[in-house]
């Protein structure tokens, strides 16, 4: 890799992050709110991309992990009365356990079949939420006792901070030897094993890390909203949003996931005046990107190009 170029790009990205961090001095609480949500979705997308883009796992159930984090945290707060800073780790832990539960099927099943298992996991989770409505609030959701903060600037910094940390950690990870091995095993498990790597170990790691960030972001999201409901953290619509954000931003790219998430949410807000069809328009835009530039914004900007293998 050409080091000078590498630094150039990093410089631009660091500048963009720094500029964003200064936004609370310039923009309204509403746009901070939009960016707060974008940041959480960006974390979901990055965590998903770690499994899909880097690890080669077709996971159609990111909301299984997010939902576990969200409900784990929400229920500890509402029913056990635990404070926010205890509930969030509890939710994160629940997500990590859920992530570990997915490792088995991931090792056993290939591609779309694993995808189906994850999809079913989400459907079962929502069934469980509805069945135990007494504890989960069922389809209308759970009102939490506490929230992170009521200040939109505070919320923005929580979310933006989480996103920045996630991006940093994942970036270090994917550029490290671990990332190399993970990517190799996602591409060709057998060949990677033959180089002497016990792929299982690395898959577990990938799932744990992805679940950790998904769960953490899910838990923080519900403490941002003040409620946990299936529509915001479990529904298939959320999964679709995450997958689309990652792919249109550019998979196998941390910045790509962030760009995709911000684009999806911000475009939705820009198009709000269009009225009822605004979300449909966003879907059309996303489909156009998917079909005609499947490598996402990142490739359109010319940062990376991959050839057909």
């Amino acid at each position, binding site marked *: 890799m050409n080091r000078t170029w590498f630094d*150039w790009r990093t410089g631009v990205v660091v500048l963009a992050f720094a*500029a964003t961090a200064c936004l609370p001095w310039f923009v*309204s609480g509403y746009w901070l*709110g939009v960016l707060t949500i974008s940041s959480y979705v960006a974390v979901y997308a990055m965590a998903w991309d770690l499994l899909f883009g880097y690890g080669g796992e077709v996971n159609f159930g990111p909301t299984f992990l997010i939902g576990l984090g969200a409900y784990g945290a929400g229920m500890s707060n509402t029913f056990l009365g635990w404070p926010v800073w205890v509930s969030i780790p509890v939710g994160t832990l629940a997500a990590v356990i859920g992530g570990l539960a997915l490792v088995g099927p991931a090792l056993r099943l290939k591609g779309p079949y694993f995808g189906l298992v994850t999809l079913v996991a989400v459907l079962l989770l929502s069934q469980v939420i509805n069945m135990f409505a007494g504890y989960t609030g069922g*389809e209308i*959701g759970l009102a939490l006792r506490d929230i992170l903060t009521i200040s939109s600037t505070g919320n923005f910094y929580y979310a933006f901070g989480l996103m920045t940390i996630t991006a940093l950690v994942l970036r270090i990870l994917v550029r490290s030897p671990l990332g190399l091995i993970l990517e190799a095993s996602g591409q060709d498990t057998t060949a990677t094993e033959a180089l002497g790597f016990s792929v299982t170990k690395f898959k577990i790691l990938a799932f744990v890390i992805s679940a950790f960030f998904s769960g953490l972001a899910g838990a923080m999201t519900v403490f941002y*909203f003040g409620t946990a409901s299936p*529509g915001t953290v479990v529904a298939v619509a959320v999964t679709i949003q995450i997958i689309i954000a990652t792919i249109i931003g550019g998979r196998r790219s941390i910045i790509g996931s962030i760009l995709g998430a911000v684009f999806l949410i911000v475009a939705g807000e820009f198009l709000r005046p269009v009225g009822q069809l*605004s979300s449909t328009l966003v879907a059309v835009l996303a489909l156009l990107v998917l079909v005609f530039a499947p490598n996402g*914004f990142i490739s359109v900007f010319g940062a990376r190009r991959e050839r057909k293998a």
Partner: protein
Amino acid sequence: MRSFSGMSRSLATAVVVAGGVLCSALVMPTARAAEPISIGVIAPESHVLGKSIFNAAELAADEINKAGGINGRMLELHKYNNNFSAADSSRAFQRAVQQDGVVAMMGIFTSEVALAMMPWASRLQTPLLVTGAASSEIPAGVKANPERYKYVFHSYVNSAILAQESCIVANATLTQSDKFKGFNRAVIFSEDAAWTKPVDESYLKCLPKVGIKVVDHIRFSPDTTDFTPIYSRIKKADANVIMAAVAHVGVKPVIQWKQQEVPALFTGINGQAGSSKFWAATNGATEGVITGTPGLNGAPLTDKTPAFFKAYTKRFDIGEPAYDAYTTYDAMYALKDALVRSDGGGDADKLVKALEKTDFTGVLGRVAFHGTGDDYAHEVIFNQDPTKGQSFVAFQWQDGKQVIIWPEKLAKGKIRLPAFVSQSQK
């Protein structure tokens, strides 16, 4: 492949351009000249019940403006489509308050969204009037934490009250009547949703009191498409009354009830049957279905009702106002009064105080809210007497029309049994 420098330049350009666009968007003016007063209305635009919320708000706002507005200041309505999504709604709420400068938000007929927006009302310190959702969690939340949720008002009665009233209707029209007193074996038929929990409890308590035996209690998923097994159970239980609590579903159970000729009277609460379009939606299968609702085809609950009904049906071509059109219309006037009394609502706490003092006659009866100490905190006061609170009527679908059967004062007809129901009666 492009050269590295070319790539970095194009990337940098892209980032700068994107950043520029973003910034220019973000620093759009947040506060506008304070002349008109902005009010937000939020609902899913694609749904009939959402449309009726928007329509009623629009109608009321125009009337208020024509009558001189709020101390000379006009009302400006901002509409937000939320696609049934809680996350979307919270974003819209922020936009409404922080970008569009609304002083109050109203609308919503889904409980998930209502519940998700409650914390935002306190965070944004903006009154929120829930006009369509029936969950008892809404007043319960206000009661449990009045300091935080004082901004939330519920201008529609909660589902427990709806259930109680349905019992009263059943008592008056069935067990008290010579002709229909044999209809005393009921099945509780509820969609599995949070709003029906208090309904079921209420049914279980009040039905036996009015001489109706509960022979089975069925809760089913709102995704249910095939009701055959459920109706089979109802037939087996030898029930002749279906006490329903449905709103998410409506068309499907009614059509299949007719197709399978289930020999039980379909009554209770059926949210969708309250819409005048329900006859067309079920292709007439709703013949004989009974349900209760706060307001209906202009039944003159108060002297304002007929005028509202006429204005609404004249102005909009989506049929008669649904229940949440009545509640939204009343909520608009409640808000108007409060705005007048709180100097345009610039101070949210003053506006809340003013809302708490609401007391006028609307299209569904007297409009006044419970205090935060009451069980139904900040919920509109209910009373069978329209002069004392929001009121309730029951009707039956007969020959394509919603015919009021209760209260007697307003009744335009008597219960008629569908052929397949009456056949089963010996």
